[in-house]
């Protein structure tokens, strides 16, 4: 009994461990709060920081993609849809299971995992949940240079 009694008294005066994201208490009306946040009158408490290799939302460098469909074939939840006419892909984040298998398998490294994890939305097919193009990726191998990996990957199929 005394061990827990000691701990609770100590904790009474220590800072609580709860992370107060987004606000300390539930607001009277969430819409007003979000409106104020949009007008920068109120700042939300930041969420818990994520480590470097965190696997969050996918980023897709559309311009560099060769349309080899390896990612479409390997995706466990069939979250990547191939667009035959432009030979590009579209990724549905609502179905994605964040396993980063497509990132590993892509021969030209056009896919990468960002650190964004606030992905809630009312509509499965909303814009922020369907990744079509997220621009230049730091690590992606330029297609124009026809890197050796790309050739070796294509004759493997």
């Amino acid at each position, binding site marked *: *009994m005394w*061990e*827990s009694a000691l*701990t*609770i008294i100590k*904790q009474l005066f220590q800072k609580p*461990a709860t992370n107060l994201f987004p606000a300390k208490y539930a607001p009277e009306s969430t819409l007003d709060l979000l409106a104020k946040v949009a007008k920068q009158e109120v700042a939300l408490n930041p969420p818990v920081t*994520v*480590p470097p*290799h*965190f*696997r969050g939302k996918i980023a897709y460098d559309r311009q560099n993609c060769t349309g080899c469909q*390896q990612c479409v074939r*390997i*995706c*466990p*939840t069939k979250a990547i849809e191939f667009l035959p006419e432009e030979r590009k892909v579209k990724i549905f984040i609502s179905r994605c*299971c*964040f*396993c*980063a*298998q497509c990132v*590993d*398998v892509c021969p030209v490294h056009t896919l990468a*995992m960002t650190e964004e994890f606030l992905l809630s939305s009312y509509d499965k097919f909303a814009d922020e949940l369907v990744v079509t193009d997220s621009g230049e990726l730091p690590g992606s191998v330029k297609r124009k240079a026809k890197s050796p990996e790309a050739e070796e*990957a294509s004759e*493997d*199929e």
Partner: protein
Amino acid sequence: MAVNNTEKTTYTIPVGPIHPALKEPIQLDLEIDGEQVVDVDIHLGQVHRSIEWLGMNRNNPVQSIYLAERICGICNVCHPFCLVLAVEQAADIVVPERAEYIRVIAAEMERIHSHILWAGVAAHEIGFDTVFYLTWRVREEIMDMIEYVFGNRITKAIYQFGGVRRDITEEQIPRLKQGLDYYKSIFEQLRRIFLEDETVKMRCRNVGILPYEDAMKLVTVGPTVRASGVPKDVRQDQAYSAYADLDIKAITPDVVTGTVVGDVYDRIIVRLLEVAQSIEIIEDCIKNMPEGPILTEPKMPRLLKLLTDAEGEGVGRVEAPRGEDIHYVRMEAGVSTLSTWKVRAPTYINLVAVPTILKGMQIADVPIAFASIDPCMSCTNRAIITDKATGKKSVVDYETMHRLSVQKTKELQR
């Protein structure tokens, strides 16, 4: 209402299918007489998701790893570990030693977080919410370590046929060591809170006893059987992966109390000591982890081709936090999916022992006695059905099937 013929009227009190204590989709029909539990009947199948069927029909083996990972929210290292071991035996893939060590580190980190999670839930079952919050706050440290090393708190996506997908680099090691030291420093306080608190002893001593004989006869596994004195532990008996190099000894309660009663209190002892054991195992693995590659076949197309041509069968047995977990896999040449995939989670077998544990208990003891086998229902249920239909012969498309089920629910409500 199971009314039996004795003059004393007993009535059935349903615990489940969704019960605030169990938080798991299982239905226990307790037949009680006053406050005494006379008989228990178990109903399963409320959350069956046809994982085996998907593995046999839709997914290629690599995709099935991520399916296996989602069999259970807490123990999501043991299922892919089993599947990977089984398929490697079937397709005869050799795993590099460094990968073996990283796999064991992942498994032991999961055991620490799973046991501490269970300790918190057990404290909540007996109404000791302060300890519940304290334990889950202590658990945050291991979750941060897992997130730092594997990228995600829960779904670690580290297992691959023939090794692991990411390496534990040199600069990640200090963060791991710092976390382990934190656990060593706080372990003494946790032990005192759980094992020396009068109210915990009052609620856990001589509650939910599983005698040695019954534990052997009912083939229970994991901490539940070790608490009854049976030294059954797959890491010790049939050492797989890097466990063969480490000398693991199955933990039984007589290490601390000198006697074995086989009740909830003993299960707390076994699980707490296993957390300490896991800490040592991780340190050993980090110390003598050999250098070298982490994946025998990094090229995915070639790996898929190798798996499709594989022929044979394999049995993967792993000591999950809740007990022995086994996957039986059979592969046929030319078939891209696994032709047979049998998953047996530890709770599946421990459930058989639940009636023996619960008989004679008071209702107040049922949640803690049942939670003491650390049930994980999502592991145990894995079959088929997603929608109801009235068995019509013609092909039913999605809309009509939906209309049928809506119509059926209306009938039930009337």
